[in-house]
């Protein structure tokens, strides 16, 4: 049975001459008692969906599509019939603002008004029922006869909730109910909502930009971007393995989910409502292809109860390594299995950190992945081409590697300019003038001077930090799709290391390349990693979302590794708050082969 069925809903606002497509073809169903979450950033059309369900849009807006409530098409109902459904069947808790309640009417009057209109109670009983509602939402009766401006934000939110519950609706829409509240009140309201929903059993649509809040209530999520649904599925699945590049950006930018990581938002702004020919996310997407600019992707099923709108079927795989093996011949004739059957996958635009002790085979693995050494067995495929033979680094959009020791990659006798330009020279890319410009740009990107004196300096004259940046510039100048950073900070002091790491993450975020960061420094790794793979004795013993691996390591070795961090004595590394993110299967697409 379906309570609400929204089909191909489109809303446009017409304001002096131009049209804003606030909602662009959204469909979803809600069953009785279900809680559906809609997330998306400000301006993505969330509120417009909410108010168009109740047909509250201004006259300047046009709507198409159908909204069936309990089998009735709301669009066909005359106003008078609609008024019988409004609030009695579908009620809404509006985005909290001072203006959302009538400033010249008391709270009680406003709560009572719909009850009497819909014939719920007689005028005499109304006050008593209003007091009950106040009790229910945790608001003192004393506040019944005050005016809206006399309430605090949290109290007003409760009053709005009491008002919404006045007629026992079957569907409750919550629009950004907590965005104006402090963390404490937010939690109270959340708990209240959960309790009320459990006892009363109504369906809910929870709308917010706050993915943590929505996820803590809803069993199913719609991710909205520029008026379109880009990803839909069960909350748990989406949080643990976002598949659309936008969803991933959203999840990764949420401090409640990635508590250790530094915050890096999705670069760029969302297009506001104009007609986009192709995929609306195109301008911010790291894996966009030609068709993305031409046709909008349709929402298509992909796996069980999951839908994605992306021409590439979601985040694409960039590199896939299968059963890699490599051993060194020791002098005593024995073989040291440095890499011993490694399977690894790297996705577009992500940061994968490979951590492990010294001697665990990290650098060897990095060299194999970069195509510098060939594995004894197994294959590495990069964008469906073979990495072996080392040809992935000699053109744009390929694989680049930056080494631990900047002195080995940049010869003392090279000037800064020569060092940065060398890859272009060797691979004969562009005219001499273009090469110079590209080299300069690359230096600017790594925040080094790109003019005069500095270009002519010899690498031997540079500090360790500067030299590591030059090495980075050398890699960036080739505009890689995948950058492998092999212990690039280990030779640097703490402060320089932090700066280089931030720089690298910043570059990665802005330019959208994928990165494999190899490090033994767990703390630094956590600041930048989306995913972590733990390497021990040439084998990957654990992979997963960075926070999962770190908060709840499952492998013994990982536990030891995590435990070996020298923390301050007062540090506690457990946190009960995030249980809802961690239940059951926590696997990222493609992690099956760990």
């Amino acid at each position, binding site marked *: 049975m379906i309570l609400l069925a929204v089909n191909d809903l489109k809303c446009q606002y017409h304001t002096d001459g131009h049209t804003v497509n606030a909602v662009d073809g959204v469909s979803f169903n809600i069953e009785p008692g279900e809680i559906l979450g809609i997330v998306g950033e400000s301006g993505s059309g969330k509120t417009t969906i909410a*108010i168009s369900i*109740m047909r*509250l849009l*201004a006259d300047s807006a046009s709507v198409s599509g159908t909204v069936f409530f309990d089998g009735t098409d709301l669009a066909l109902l005359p*106003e*008078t019939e*609609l*008024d*019988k*459904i*409004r*609030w*009695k069947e579908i*009620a*809404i808790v*509006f985005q909290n*603002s001072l*203006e*959302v*309640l*009538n*400033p*010249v*009417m008391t709270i009680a009057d406003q709560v009572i*008004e*719909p009850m009497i*209109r*819909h014939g719920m109670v007689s005028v005499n009983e109304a006050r008593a029922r209003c007091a009950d509602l106040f009790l229910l939402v945790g608001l003192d009766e004393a506040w019944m006869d005050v*005016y809206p*401006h006399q309430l605090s934000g949290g109290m007003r939110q409760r009053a709005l909730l009491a*008002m919404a519950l006045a007629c026992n609706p079957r569907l409750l829409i919550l629009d950004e109910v907590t965005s104006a509240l402090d963390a404490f009140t937010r939690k109270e309201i959340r708990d209240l909502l959960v309790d009320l929903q459990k006892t009363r059993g109504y369906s809910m649509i929870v709308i917010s930009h706050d993915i943590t809040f929505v996820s803590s209530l809803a069993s199913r999520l719609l991710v909205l971007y520029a008026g379109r649904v880009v990803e839909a599925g069960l909350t748990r699945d989406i949080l643990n393995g976002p598949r659309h590049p936008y969803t991933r950006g959203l999840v990764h930018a949420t401090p409640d989910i990635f508590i250790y990581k530094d915050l890096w938002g999705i670069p760029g702004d969302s297009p506001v409502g104009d007609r986009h020919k192709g995929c609306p996310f195109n301008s911010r997407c790291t894996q966009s292809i030609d068709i993305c600019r031409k046709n909008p992707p349709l929402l298509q099923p992909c796996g069980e109860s999951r839908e994605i709108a992306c021409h590439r079927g979601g985040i694409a795989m960039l590199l896939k390594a299968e059963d890699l093996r490599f051993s060194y011949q020791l002098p005593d004739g024995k073989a040291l299995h440095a890499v011993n059957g490694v399977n690894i996958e790297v996705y577009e635009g992500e940061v994968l950190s490979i951590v492990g002790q010294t001697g665990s085979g990290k650098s060897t693995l990095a060299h194999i992945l970069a195509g510098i050494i060939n594995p004894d067995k197994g294959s590495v495929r990069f964008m469906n081409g073979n990495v072996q033979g080392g040809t992935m680094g000699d053109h744009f959009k390929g694989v680049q590697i930056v080494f631990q020791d900047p002195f080995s990659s940049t010869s003392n006798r090279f000037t800064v300019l020569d060092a940065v330009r060398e890859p272009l020279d060797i691979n004969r890319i562009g005219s001499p003038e273009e090469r110079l410009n590209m080299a300069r740009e690359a230096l600017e990107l790594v925040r080094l001077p790109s003019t005069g004196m500095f270009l002519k300096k010899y690498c031997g004259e540079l500090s360790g930090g500067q030299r590591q940046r030059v090495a980075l510039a050398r890699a960036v100048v080739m505009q890689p799709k995948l950058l492998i950073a092999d212990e690039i900070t280990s030779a640097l002091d703490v402060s320089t290391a932090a700066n280089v790491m931030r720089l690298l993450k910043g570059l990665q975020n802005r330019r959208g390349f994928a990165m494999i960061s190899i490090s033994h420094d767990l703390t630094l790794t956590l600041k930048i990693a989306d995913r972590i793979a733990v390497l021990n004795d040439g084998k990957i013993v654990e992979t997963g979302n960075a926070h999962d691996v770190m908060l709840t390591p499952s492998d013994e070795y990982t536990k030891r590794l995590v435990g070996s961090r020298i923390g301050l004595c007062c540090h506690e590394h457990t946190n009960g708050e995030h249980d809802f993110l961690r239940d059951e299967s926590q696997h990222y697409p493609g992690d099956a082969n760990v």
Partner: protein
Amino acid sequence: MNGNDRNTLIYRFVITLLVILAINFFLPRMMPGDPFSTLSSDIEGEDVIIMTEEQRQYFIHYYGMDLPLHEQFFLYLANMAKGDFGQSIYYKLPVTRVILLHLPWTILIVLSATAMSTIIGIIIGTISARNRKKGSDRFMMAGLIAFAEIPSFLLGIILLLIFSVQFRLFPLAGAITPFAHYTSLLDQVWDIAHHAFLPIITLSLAQLTGVYLLTRNTLITVSTKDYIRTAVAKGIGEKTVWTRHALRNALLPVVTRTGFMIGLMMGGAVLVETVFSYPGIGLTLRSAVVNRDYALIQGILLIVAVAILLCNLVVDRVYRQLDPRVTE
């Protein structure tokens, strides 16, 4: 309102009153001429002496006008404090009596006109706002704005010519039929209403467009507010939304305006009363000015000023009643 607030309010009121008294005193004396030598611009360059110099000096002394100006001022203040407004030189009656004789007529037409223009303005403003951008709204708007451009005395003359001169529906002048014997109270009321009708209409028409536009525009602004959307969502019906939620909020600025309007109308009454020869305070003021009847001018201006102050006070009160946000 707490005691402190009340004190500042009274304080402000007293200061305003003093300023008005001062202006009131000095302004008429800055006009050329005095009550005893009528300087009439109708007769070019010629003073028409209607009394001998001796008589003139006698009167000037009699009315205390030979004293130094500041002494006159303090005397004036002292008399005011006693409630003595002085003697009207022209009417040869106490100023208070003259005012009491004429003020009720002005109050009658000004209050009626205020009520009429406010009520009608709100009603058609609401109709217009509800039909926003439709034909009826555009038509009403264009019509009323064009109408507002006509000066009220011209409008008065036109109404007088059409309804009194042409159709003889209304009397040409006065507030009551002279020497009439009323058979009943109803008869008397009817006679008064009959006389007051055209002046009231003229005064209200002059104010109507203002009220109409303010109501319409405020309503349109209010109708885009979030609480209106909340009200619609509650399914309480369009009519309730407009009356209980939208109009109630839109009335706030209209109420304020009505207060100012009463003051404005007192001024407008001078012209309108002249056109209709309506014996109100405006007509009296006009003759007082022509005759340099200082005491009377002062008295009338003071009454008008106090009336305006009182109106503002009342508006303030009403506003507090209507808008709970200003009570703090």
